[in-house]
């Protein structure tokens, strides 16, 4: 079984969200998602400073096999993107919850995350 972390929130479309101590939200894709995608070869991230909307596409992840949209779990301004993924997209496979994060959002409505799944509910959704 793939790894899940209790402190994260999840979307059924396989993104995770972590609320940091400063109130910003870091977004990535789950261990289950990277496993299903296979070797990640390209990541298209949202532009720094752009606005993303909850549950709509904010980027794309491509493996050797296929392309998948990445949805943002919250609305808000993109305040950081993981530039390391441009040079080393395989980081998404090796470290989906840590070094393989995609982008950080300054949320405009943090309550949106209440609709996201907890680890247990996400686990049930992929079984």
């Amino acid at each position, binding site marked *: 079984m793939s790894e899940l972390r209790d402190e994260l929130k999840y979307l059924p479309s396989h993104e995770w969200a972590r609320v940091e101590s400063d109130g910003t939200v870091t977004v990535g894709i789950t261990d289950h998602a990277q496993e299903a995608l296979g070797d990640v070869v*390209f990541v298209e991230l949202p532009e720094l400073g752009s606005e993303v909307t909850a549950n709509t596409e904010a980027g794309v992840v*491509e493996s050797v096999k296929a392309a998948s949209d990445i949805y943002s779990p919250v609305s808000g301004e993109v305040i950081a993107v993981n530039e390391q993924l441009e040079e080393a997209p395989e980081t998404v496979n090796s470290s989906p919850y840590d070094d393989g994060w995609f982008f950080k959002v300054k949320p405009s409505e943090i309550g949106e995350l209440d609709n996201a799944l907890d680890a247990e509910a996400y686990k049930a959704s992929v079984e």
Partner: protein
Amino acid sequence: MFGERMLKETALVDLHRELGAKLVDFGGWLMPLHYGSQMEEHHRVRQGAGWFDVSHMTVLDVHGADAKRYLQFLLANDVAKLTQPGKALYSGMLNERAGVIDDLIVYLCDFGYRVVVNCATREKDLAWMQKQAANFEVSLIERDELAMLAVQGPKARALVGQLLPVPDLGVFVGADVKYKTSNVFVARTGYTGEDGYEVILPASEAVAFVQQLGEVGVAPCGLGARDTLRLEAGMNLYGHEMDEAISPLEANMSWTLDWSDSGRDFIGKKALLQQKADGVKNKLVGLLIKGKGVLRAGQEVRMSGSEASGLITSGSFSPTLSTSIALARVPVEFNGECQVIIRNKEVAVDIVKPCFVRNGANIVKAI
């Protein structure tokens, strides 16, 4: 299970599971996509040796007094070229409109000919071949008791040589050899752009043989890596680069059309001559991405100054070149820099010869 499609399995399916394969529905067969990492398997074949289970492919033996005449009529390439036993020929099998029913390999054997066709096209191929056989004294015998393996990579021949007494074979030539008490057909053919063999052996011996391959250092590779390897090598995949609506003249298969015997009639010949007279409108080219992203089948290709557009037939990330490549069918006037539409954005690509990697080396060339 009820409601689930029953998938056919090869003799190696349990071994695939033991080796950790991700098994998927591949043209009605339960086949390994990869055993962990498609990229690692790809590199293994370019740098060392890997084996693939390709037992889903259909092996047909053609017997009978008219076997040669029959295949000369059935295929666009001419089996008269096969003068040395074990010699192989690649050909399209065309319909009357010169569309491609399938592409195949035919070997000259002591009993007649052996034909290897694709798995997804098995039923229609058999029906077509039986129908065309009506006017010839031939019999077609499907050899589904056989398994087929591809062992590919720069070290493949040396490693297989530790297990089988393979004679020194030229490229595209095969021979019968003994494995234990069984007859095994080994040919210097493949679908990766690397040296190596394809091995046809009794399904009952397949597990033992593959375990021995593992012992001498040949690693299992899935059909995912097979696809990126053949794409880098610029080899066509049926249903992508060509199908029943695509002429070989537009699929980089002109070299497989044998016109040397003007007295030979073959199915599709008349239509091909007409197409040549009318002028061929499209060509199959390679694309090398200049911007960012991954080229995929189905994406549109444009060139500034032209109203016409082309289509990517196969596209992927190239593990050897670390960039994205594609095969595309484009109007004949396309050349130089073009644009591919990826998610509504134009990405620049260069048109190159439809062959990217051979024997481990980057051979990309402008047209």
